[in-house]
């Protein structure tokens, strides 16, 4: 499982961090998403999928 983020699309809403705080963080200055784990463990899948669902900018993708 590989998580991909597109910082250019990110609007800094921070909803991904609420959904999966172990996988995502935000830059302090502008809130743009930071990927903490590019290859998270399988048990994080549900959280990552939730983050993808709630991201208002569609800036997160998942590759298997």
């Amino acid at each position, binding site marked *: 499982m590989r998580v991909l983020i597109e910082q250019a*699309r990110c*609007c*800094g*809403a*921070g*909803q991904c*961090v*609420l959904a999966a705080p172990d996988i995502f963080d*935000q830059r*302090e*200055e*502008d*809130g743009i998403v930071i990927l903490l784990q590019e290859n998270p463990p399988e048990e994080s899948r549900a959280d990552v999928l939730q983050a993808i*669902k*709630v991201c*208002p*900018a*569609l800036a997160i993708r998942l590759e298997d």
Partner: protein
Amino acid sequence: MRTVIVVGGSAAGLAAVQALRAEGYRGRILVVGAEPHLPYDRPPLSKGFIADNLPFEHVRLSEPALLNELGAEWLIPARACELDLDRRMLRLEAGDRLGFDGLILATGVSPRVFPGPRPNGVYTLRSLDDAAALRTALGSAPQVAVIGTGVLGMEFAATARKLGLDVTVIGNAPHPLARQFPAAIGNLLAARHRAAGVMLRLEVQVAGFEEKGGHLSGVRLADGDIVPAELALVAIGSQPDVDWLRTSGLPIGDGILCDACCRAAPGVYAAGDVASWWHSGYGARLRIEHRMNATEQAGATVKNLLGAAEDFRPIPFMWSDQHDIKLQSYGIFPDDGEVEIEGDMASGRFVALCHNQGRVVGALGWNAVKALRQSRMRLVEAMEGIRLDELQLTVG
């Protein structure tokens, strides 16, 4: 259930389709969308789409292949014009009659307009086509007037200024975002816009438009002044698209009036900008015109349509980007709320908390995304303890 119709093909409509499939519904899905485009995202339209000339691909809400996988039938452009609840039938303007077992109404809102003649050069901004037309027109409009001091008007003003244009914002409120936030926030925002070179004419009514040869030349104010402009954006709010439902028997007010589960009638739910529902956490009727709510509420309505019967009680979230300021807020800011600033307002990074009857009901971050996110927990905790009869709020 064999057929679900989703009326509205934007963020809430798409989220409803995605949620139906995610929840395991395998029946037929029809989406009736008034616009000719597949789902796209509206927040960038007042910002990057215009300022950075973004292509359509950047604002679409789903890759075509992924949209295809959902297996919904997209009837676009098509407009629903009549709902027959007894016969479980939806009629389209083109004449088609579509039967349904479940119905999700996500028709959104339309911009309010001024009565009277409207010369060329006067725009509203809601759709992708609106934004594309504005983007082109801004190229030959060195002077821009923005009428309205809400989120859309202020974002567009910042965008036009970024493009190097002369921008004047006109509004009858005492400060920007007066419907959303307390005066302290609005005044700080006004100062930031002025520092960026945006002119603000506040607490003044617009009397009409001046024109030369059929094209806008200025906006006439009630005090007699004329703000010269080749282009004006009218951003004075929106009205829910509910006119076609007035004969349906559904309860209609400021939006489609739903219960705490977002249900308007048996098997009929509303989501997104058009839905007015009883938020059992705040003890208030809310209608929210923000992006996150479209997704969240669509998901909730789908679960309830499929039998969950759960109250929809989110912590509302909104954001707005203007100049170098990222405003974000959770919760609500009622008029009689008391504001407490955490941090230093002059530092350009702070959180404003809104207290109402001893509870934290709203939190706003001014360039403070992380601190705001940490404040959110306090709102969740405050809502957990709520007894309905304790808190009576009205939200504009």
